[in-house]
């Protein structure tokens, strides 16, 4: 059966989203078709605003409401501007904010370096980070990129780039996951947990 064009268009659009295959895309499309008009209209409005209503914070490059120069975190007088946590994605800022105990500010790279995929420093907000460090107000950078090959590579690259500026560079500790089991830990994690062990006080 040939589907009417508007239906096929929406299925195609959904299919381009990460984690959504043709089956899920069809299911969502037919769900919207049967649901109250209000749902589609709200969704359409939200989609329209997602780009026009947001912009990047000019300090940390996190997503913020359009019209603002700085995001709420950077603008807050409560936050320690000399402590900067470097993350790959805006979602990682949310994750760290949920801990409720990080006093500093952030820098969002919008990705990680990947030599094989050809994702280089110019594709990320690395120049902006170097600029921020060069300007002199940063005392410590916490490199909180993912504990993956790309995240480690990015941290090593930033380390090399930023070392000359005399800023303190730290990397999030890596070790055994809470609720995990030693038996299943890989050698990299175990070795790092061993080297990063802490005094019991």
């Amino acid at each position, binding site marked *: 059966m040939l589907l009417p064009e508007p239906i096929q268009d929406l299925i195609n659009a959904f299919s381009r989203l990460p984690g959504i295959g*043709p089956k899920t895309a069809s299911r969502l499309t037919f769900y919207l078709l049967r649901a109250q008009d209000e749902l589609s209209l709200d969704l359409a409005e939200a989609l329209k605003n997602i780009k026009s209503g947001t912009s990047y914070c000019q300090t940390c490059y996190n997503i913020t409401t359009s019209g603002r120069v700085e995001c709420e975190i950077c603008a807050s007088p409560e936050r320690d501007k000399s402590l900067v946590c470097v993350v790959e994605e805006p979602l990682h800022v949310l994750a760290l904010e949920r801990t409720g105990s990080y006093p500093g500010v952030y820098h969002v790279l919008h990705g990680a*370096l990947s*030599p*094989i995929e050809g994702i280089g420093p110019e594709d990320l907000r690395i120049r902006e980070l170097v600029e921020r460090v060069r300007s002199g107000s940063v005392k410590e950078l916490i490199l909180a990129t993912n504990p993956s*090959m790309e995240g480690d590579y990015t941290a090593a690259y930033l380390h*090399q780039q930023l070392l000359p500026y005399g800023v303190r560079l730290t990397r999030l500790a890596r070790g055994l996951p809470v609720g995990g089991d030693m038996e299943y830990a890989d*050698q*990299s994690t175990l*070795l790092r947990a061993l080297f990063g062990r802490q005094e019991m006080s």
Partner: protein
Amino acid sequence: MVTQDGTAQPDALHRQRSFRVEAVVLRHSDWGEADRLLVLYTLEMGKLRALAKGARKPRSRKAGHLEPYTRVSLQLARGRDIPIVSQAETLDPYLRLREELLLSTYASYVVELLDRFTYEEGENRSIYRLLADTLSRLCTQSSPELAVRYYEIRLLDLLGFRPQLFQCSSCGAEIQPQDQFFSAALGGVLCPQCGRDTAGALPVSMPALKYLRHFQRSSFSEAARVTLSAGINREMEALMQHYLTYLLERGLNTPAFLRRVRRIDQDEPPIAN
């Protein structure tokens, strides 16, 4: 949901529901909500793709074993479209490759070459061993450059692109001990007479050619006895990358990273391609 390019799966996949392989993880990409699609080079089946379900969840038991440039033992179960990882255990984490920027970049180069030159076409144990040995040499040898130059020349051999280094690729004359030319299109060295008349031929110095010949005929332990000067290494690297890029008909991603990383490391001027 999985879109396949229609390549035939190895026979063993059809016979057994579950099988064990030894592999090096070449690449990974995000798949679905929390899964990872892996590109592996296996000892038993050559290049192979596999799905690691839930590998992006922090509590995944498998994730740490499945990072790129790790040598692993895997239990794979036949999936609907591609095999699914049911168990993973690290054989060698090559830890230095994830902690040192220059070594990590060399490892990326080694893996990119292998990934670009191979297809899902079945077992090639020599290629697997060369890959695993080279990653291990990067972690243990004092000169990563030497390990990589040796890898390039041996890989070309195993892929069937062994360059002709002993006779002129145009007139067949035996190569004399003097500076020569190299033609990617003809797949080897050219004597000075032929080289001057061949479009696109690169000059190659006698010392660089001597090392290339030596590597082509020697075991790694014999090759590792030489000391490569920075200048000769750069000349060999430029020549090999020229030839490899010609064979691939497309540029490689990793050499730009190598130039960048070395520039900061040693204040080297950028190397022209």
